[in-house]
């Protein structure tokens, strides 16, 4: 009997040791899957994304009201090899958007809050040790918009076995955010402060304005057959600080005057995902993805995504895709006027409600061997393009359309 108990104890310890290992990192797959030779050439990616949405459940107006939004997001990514093993990656962009929802913070039509911009920069360094099948890297990032300042730090380490047949990637990422308004104000006498709905100003709703996010995770990549590979990954996320959005209104039962959204100051997220890619036939491959997600706010979600690639040639593909997302809403969510005044926490943000979302669309990938257009005799030029358009439909009535594009410039 004692021997059996010892076995159970040993199994328990082993389980928690492995559990700890799972939580001790993050997945940075894209950097590590490219063959080393492909990463050594300086290259530029020019990105442009457009997104627009309509809906009638804005959290700014308590769960009802327009959610109309238009978002333009140009960006550039520069890959600079430092030597045969190291690389610096710089990404920068300025997103411009107009939000009818944010315009209703003060109920003045076409006020300054209707339009805003988000500027972001990220710098990463990665280095490989091909003989040891190892790579590591570090990154830092920053972004700012009128009501937000975010600073991020992170790093990763990956180790391969059997000539990269199996790759284990671990990493950590931390974000330090400041939720005060006024970062982009041109007024020299500006005062950084939390912004509340117009009629709720003058009350100290929150005495803190910082938000911290820490992510630890691990990913395991395995080549199963010459046509099949698989990836299993898990993140452990802890958020702490001001997790409420201070200009979200909540209308409580029987009260005409709203209050400011109030959410817990801690959030633990646990997503687990698996991705399987199968090159089914010479001109056809399937990319599939599943994720289970849960957190301590009561949100549970399942995500299934399938992309197929019809390869008309090695350099030209058409990629239809479909994604199904199902979410069980947060414990703290209530629609307009339904939150109890005795509740400890409350929100009317429909992003935290129970809903199903469908995303579908089509993409193309065109990258001819000698490039699309050469700029000079050295071979630099426009090397290829990826385009993607899609629709995103949520069961609560939110509808979105988006377009994404990437233009590759290099040698």
């Amino acid at each position: 009997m004692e021997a059996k108990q010892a076995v159970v104890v040993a199994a328990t310890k082993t389980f928690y040791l492995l559990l700890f290992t799972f939580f001790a990192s993050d997945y940075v797959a894209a950097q590590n899957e490219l063959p080393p030779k492909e990463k050594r050439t300086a290259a530029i990616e020019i990105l442009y994304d457009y997104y627009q949405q309509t809906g009638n459940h804005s959290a700014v107006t308590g769960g009802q009201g327009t959610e109309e939004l238009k978002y333009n997001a140009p960006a550039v990514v520069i890959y600079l090899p430092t030597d045969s093993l190291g690389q610096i990656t710089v990404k920068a962009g300025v997103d411009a958007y107009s939000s009818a929802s944010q315009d209703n913070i003060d109920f003045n039509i076409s006020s300054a809050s209707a339009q805003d911009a988000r500027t972001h920069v990220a710098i990463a360094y990665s280095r490989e040790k091909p003989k040891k099948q190892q790579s590591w890297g570090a990154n830092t990032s920053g972004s700012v918009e009128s009501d937000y300042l975010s600073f991020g730090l992170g790093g990763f380490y990956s180790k391969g076995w059997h000539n990269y047949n199996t790759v284990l990637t671990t990493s950590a990422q931390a974000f330090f955010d400041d939720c005060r308004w006024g970062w982009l104000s041109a007024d020299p006498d500006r005062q950084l402060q939390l912004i509340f709905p117009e009629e709720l100003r003058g009350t100290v709703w929150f005495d803190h304005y910082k938000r911290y996010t820490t992510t630890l995770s691990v990913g395991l990549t395995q080549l199963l057959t010459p046509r099949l590979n698989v990836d299993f990954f898990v993140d452990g996320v802890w958020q702490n600080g001001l997790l409420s959005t201070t200009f979200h209104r909540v209308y409580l039962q029987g009260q005409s005057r709203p209050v400011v959204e109030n959410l817990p100051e801690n959030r633990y997220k646990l997503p687990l995902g698996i991705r399987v890619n199968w090159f089914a036939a010479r001109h056809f491959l399937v990319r599939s993805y599943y994720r289970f997600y849960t957190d301590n706010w009561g949100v549970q979600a399942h995500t299934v995504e399938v992309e197929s690639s019809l390869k008309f040639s090695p350099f030209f593909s058409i990629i239809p895709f479909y994604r199904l997302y199902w979410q069980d809403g947060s414990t703290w969510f209530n629609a307009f006027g339904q939150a109890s005044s005795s509740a400890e926490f409350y929100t009317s943000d429909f992003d935290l409600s129970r809903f199903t979302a469908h995303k579908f669309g089509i993409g193309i990938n065109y990258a001819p061997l000698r490039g699309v257009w050469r700029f000079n005799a050295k071979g630099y030029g426009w090397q290829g393009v990826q385009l993607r358009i899609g629709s995103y439909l949520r069961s609560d009535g939110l509808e979105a359309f988006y377009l994404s594009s990437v233009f590759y410039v290099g040698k």
Partner: protein
Amino acid sequence: MIAKIRSFFTSCSLPMRKHLGPFANQCTIARLLMLGLILLFIFTSCATVPAYDRAYLNDEEMKLSQLNCAHFESYFQIIREGASGADGGKTGGGCGCN
């Protein structure tokens, strides 16, 4: 022995449940982690694919992450949905209050 292990993961009587905080009562988590561990051992015991036999696996569209032009989708999905993470993208940080 098997029955004990089974009850270990299904009864939620985890000896360290107090350290699991908000997930202490979620048997699903334990089961999924168990499944993950099983997958881990299956993966690592698989036969290797030699480098000369990876022509299909080295295709750009076979990489085990999002395609480059799909990163923006991940960005807006993080904002519009309660779930995030486990896809190589961000899991927090930034505003997302639009």
